[in-house]
């Protein structure tokens, strides 16, 4: 019995072992030999990814550890997403990290530990397990965000993230403590059964605290103020991982808590209006504030706030189609965003600036980087031949099916607005002069990442069926 339970968490165990192995290897290897950490990490994660994909299709699913932990396709889908994102981050940032002092070898171990936290979040069936996973992820991210040596901006971003993240965790926990008091349980299924449909002030209080804490993690609009500062100050690969994987992990938890625990609760049924307004605000504010941004990382930060709004629309739909839309969109968002961040990382380390005006003439100086950036931002904007269009189509059609047509209109209009600022980056790259800026030849692992993300973005846009099938089976494993 117990042995099969441990079999179900093989990926988690493997990731934990890999993280510890990386710490040990980074300490034991001589200074010059630390380049070996990248292949070790990448191939380790590739092996775990292969196992997780196998597990997704053929694994034996069900709750394990007395219902403390879910082993289902929904969790596996997110694990595939985290591992893919991590591999792309590591590959795209090899040159960037290579410039750091040698004692920064623990970067890879920390990154791997963050993946473990995300996996626990996606699988947790208990609010306590969820909280431990969340803290493992966020505490690791506090370190990673403030990781640049002798860079005041990085330290400042780290400390801001720590103060805001820890406060939001405290608010989340205060909500959890009331839910425990109301139901006598921290297990999601037990809470769902106990809460019932009565609407009392303590239930409202607990739900609002829970929503505020989770809203911070997915940067829903009233709780989004941290994102731009932290995204700008953090090392670019960390920003990429934060924007892609940390947000997806928080969404995995939000979907599970929302659909399993709060589904029958009358607060949610009456409070859908509140969530709709928050989602609409997130889309509007994220897209409008992105327009005047001058820094590419800040622009992508506001774009990722807007993307959280689109994803929230799918959660509100509360159906298989909605969850499928969220899963599909989260996955293509990984490839589109990783493409953009791979270019930002590479160009940033080559010319020491993240300002958009320094991208002038990139099409001439580095045609591949400019093409990948263009494909990525057009996919984020949802232009038809690319994957982003299919994802937005799934999300908005799911929510229209539930009868909330106006939010889909808000989404359409805001997608049009987003085209403007995405294309302004493209305009700078293709029409700008940039005569005094250096040529940036792209090679090595970064080149592979860029080409790979662009091809996947195109491929899923033209032939979305396989990924959509996976998303549907993952969604049906959660929504009964």
């Amino acid at each position, binding site marked *: 019995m117990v042995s099969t339970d441990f079999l179900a968490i093989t990926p988690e165990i493997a990731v934990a072992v890999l993280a510890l192995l990386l710490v040990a290897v980074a300490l034991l290897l001589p200074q010059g030999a630390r380049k070996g950490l990248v292949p070790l990490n990448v191939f380790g994660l590739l092996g775990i990814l292969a196992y997780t994909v196998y597990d997704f299709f053929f694994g034996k699913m069900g709750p394990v550890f007395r219902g403390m932990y879910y082993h289902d396709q929904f969790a596996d889908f997110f694990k595939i997403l985290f591992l893919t994102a991590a591999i792309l981050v590591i590959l795209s940032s090899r040159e960037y990290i290579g410039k750091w002092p040698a004692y920064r070898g623990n970067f890879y171990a920390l990154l791997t530990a963050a993946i473990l936290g995300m996996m626990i979040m996606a699988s947790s069936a208990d609010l306590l397990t969820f909280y431990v996973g969340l803290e493992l992820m966020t505490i690791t991210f506090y370190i990673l965000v403030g990781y640049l040596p002798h860079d005041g901006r990085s*330290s400042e971003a*780290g400390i801001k993230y720590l*103060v805001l993240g*820890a406060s939001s965790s*405290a608010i989340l926990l205060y909500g959890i403590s009331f839910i425990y008091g109301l139901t*006598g349980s921290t297990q999601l299924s037990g809470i769902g059964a106990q809460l019932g449909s009565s609407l009392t002030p303590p239930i409202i209080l607990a739900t609002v605290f829970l929503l505020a804490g989770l809203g911070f993690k997915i940067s829903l609009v009233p709780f989004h103020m941290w994102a731009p500062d932290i995204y700008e100050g953090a090392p670019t690969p960390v920003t990429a991982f934060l924007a892609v994987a940390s947000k997806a992990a928080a969404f995995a938890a939000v979907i599970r808590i929302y659909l399993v625990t709060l589904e029958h609760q009358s607060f949610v049924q009456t409070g859908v209006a509140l969530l709709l307004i928050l989602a609409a605000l997130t889309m509007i504010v994220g897209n409008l504030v992105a327009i005047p*941004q001058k820094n590419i990382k800040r622009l992508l930060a506001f774009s990722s706030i807007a993307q959280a709004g689109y994803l929230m629309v799918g959660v509100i739909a509360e159906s298989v189609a909605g969850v499928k839309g969220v899963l599909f969109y989260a996955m293509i968002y990984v490839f589109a965003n990783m493409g953009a961040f791979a270019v930002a990382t590479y160009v940033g380390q080559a010319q020491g600036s993240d300002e958009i005006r320094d991208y002038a003439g990139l099409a001439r100086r580095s045609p591949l980087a400019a093409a990948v950036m263009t494909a990525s931002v057009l996919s984020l904007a949802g232009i038809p031949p690319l994957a982003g269009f299919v994802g937005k189509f799934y999300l908005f059609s799911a929510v229209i099916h539930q009868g909330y047509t106006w939010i889909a209109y808000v989404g359409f209009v805001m997608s049009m607005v987003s085209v403007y600022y995405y294309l302004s980056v493209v305009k700078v790259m293709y029409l700008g002069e940039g005569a005094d800026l250096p040529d940036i030849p792209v090679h090595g692992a970064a080149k592979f990442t860029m080409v790979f993300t662009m091809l996947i973005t195109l491929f899923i846009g033209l032939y979305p069926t396989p990924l959509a099938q996976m998303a549907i089976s993952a969604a049906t494993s959660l929504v009964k």
Partner: protein
Amino acid sequence: MNFNLSVGLSTYLLVGAMLFCLGLYGVFVKKNIVAVLMSIELMLNAVNLNFVAFNRFLAVSSVVGQVAALFVIVLAAAEVAVGLALVIAIYRTRHTTNTDEFNWLKW
């Protein structure tokens, strides 16, 4: 006159709520970053008090609430360790712990 002076669940919840509000207030108004970290600890301790009180008064047979409090204590310690390390890192470049001067990143 018959006053009810027994210490019940609501007393603990009230103290917890006061601690939580005090912590939240501290996070917003304190100028020193170390004091802000201490305020966050206050909020987390309010949570612990809630968990233990709910466990003691509502679910005597189980220990879930006490276990939760232990988890929170451990994770809060990890958080504050990282927090102090970051305070030292930023002090090296700015020579200050005043939150008002952490203003290089702004829009």
